């Protein structure tokens, strides 16, 4: 219980240190920033060691005798050759494998799960039984075509083509506005979270 209270006080102190930057840069902000960076780096290393290296590689290899894991262990060790100039090229083998696997997974996922299904989902009927649905589908179709034309650079944006491209800009601006609105909402949520922590957990003045 005492440790919990101490934890809350430490968290409250560092929250206020970070908030102090809103007034101007100062010693307390820098202190909190440096401690945060140091702890994050240490925590990250410890977390990766205990959650990734030990259960996925070291324990199965040494305790369960899964000798096949010597291969990923060797490839992983090759990544550290970057610190040795003469043999640093060896790290590219492991990197090539990583990039190949992730690229393959990403391309297949994007092609089948995103591109094809999204094109399919945007081929909508413009005439439906509901007037609102028809209007929605029309707006979506016009917006899609206008935006695609805006990003088509092989033809100069002049005349009718330029007019449609300008409509595309309007749709893009609306989408940027919506994204910005959501970003503001997200940042405010984080601020509310910290203020709630200060008022409730630390000061205990919320009901």
């Amino acid at each position, binding site marked *: 219980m005492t440790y919990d209270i101490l934890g809350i006080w430490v968290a409250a102190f560092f929250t206020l240190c970070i908030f102090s930057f809103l007034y101007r840069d100062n010693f307390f902000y820098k202190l909190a920033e440096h401690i945060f960076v140091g702890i994050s780096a240490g925590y990250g290393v410890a977390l990766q060691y205990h*959650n990734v290296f030990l259960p996925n590689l070291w324990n199965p290899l040494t305790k369960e005798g899964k000798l096949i894991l010597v291969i990923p262990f060797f490839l992983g060790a090759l990544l550290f050759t970057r610190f040795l100039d003469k043999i640093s090229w060896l790290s590219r083998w492991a990197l090539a494998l990583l990039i190949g696997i992730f690229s393959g*997974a990403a391309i297949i996922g994007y092609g089948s799960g995103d591109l094809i299904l999204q094109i399919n989902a945007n081929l909508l009927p413009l005439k439906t039984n509901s007037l609102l649905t028809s209007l929605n589908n029309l707006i979506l179709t016009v917006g899609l075509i206008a935006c695609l034309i805006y990003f088509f650079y092989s033809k100069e944006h002049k005349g009718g083509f330029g007019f449609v491209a300008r409509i595309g800009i309007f749709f893009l601006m609306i989408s940027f506005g919506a994204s910005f609105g959501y970003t503001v909402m997200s940042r405010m949520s984080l601020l509310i979270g*910290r203020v*709630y922590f200060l008022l409730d957990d630390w000061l205990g003045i919320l009901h």
Partner: protein
Amino acid sequence: MRKFFEFINKLDRRVIFIFVALAIIIPLLRPLNIKFTVTEPVQGFYDAIEKVPQGSKVLFSCDYEPGSRPELFPMTVAALEQMLRRNLKVIALSLWPAGPPIVEEALSDVAEKQFKSKYGVDYVNLGFKEGREVVMVSMGSSIPTTFPQDFRGTKVSEIPIMQGVSNFSDVKLIVNISGGYPGTKEWVQQVQARYNIGLVSGCTAVSAPEYYPYYQSGQLRGLLGGMKGAAEYEMLVGRTGLGRKGMDAQSMAHLIIFLFIVLGNLAYFSLKKKKT
């Protein structure tokens, strides 16, 4: 009027910070109870869980870290409450390194304390696995091979809830709470499309515009966007968490920001016009 606009134009940004701080603190201390309605994507999220037959197994992937906690933790505990109330068996995991302790906290608050559910029988925390999309693809082949042990170090083969769970075909729904990459986008691309399994998502407000097309296309059955989505969902579940408590503060902060944007633009264009 000109003097007022000049004052606005030169306004110290710290004054705006004070107004935003007051807009958040006052509603938290004195709730205004501003009413809001449940939107269609949130209703879809709720309905998707309601439609899962009782006793079925559900995969609950909490892919976020403490940085997104204020937005995502409220929806995490609310989703857990709905799933456990429906007697669904929850298989929790995280694809973010610092995710499992948050999952543990949510499970402790809701499963252990509120529902008195039994670990290993009603729910399990498989912990974190490095590999992002590759982990998802690997789970499609075999979940027990991908996660040989749970967060507490128990072998998956010894956990009752994991008996009969081989791959995605053995779970009825995937509930993803996403803080970014890897998250909802990767679950849609790597799992939903490939295995045609039901997927619902709760995400940060920043990510929501990116995920709405997936809801529109039917790839997501429901979507909770940020604290607003969490608040609506809490209302459906019947829970009063940070989502609902923070809605008044959020609304007032948005109002203040909106007012300053309008005033700033009016001042800028008015003074610019007079200069020319």
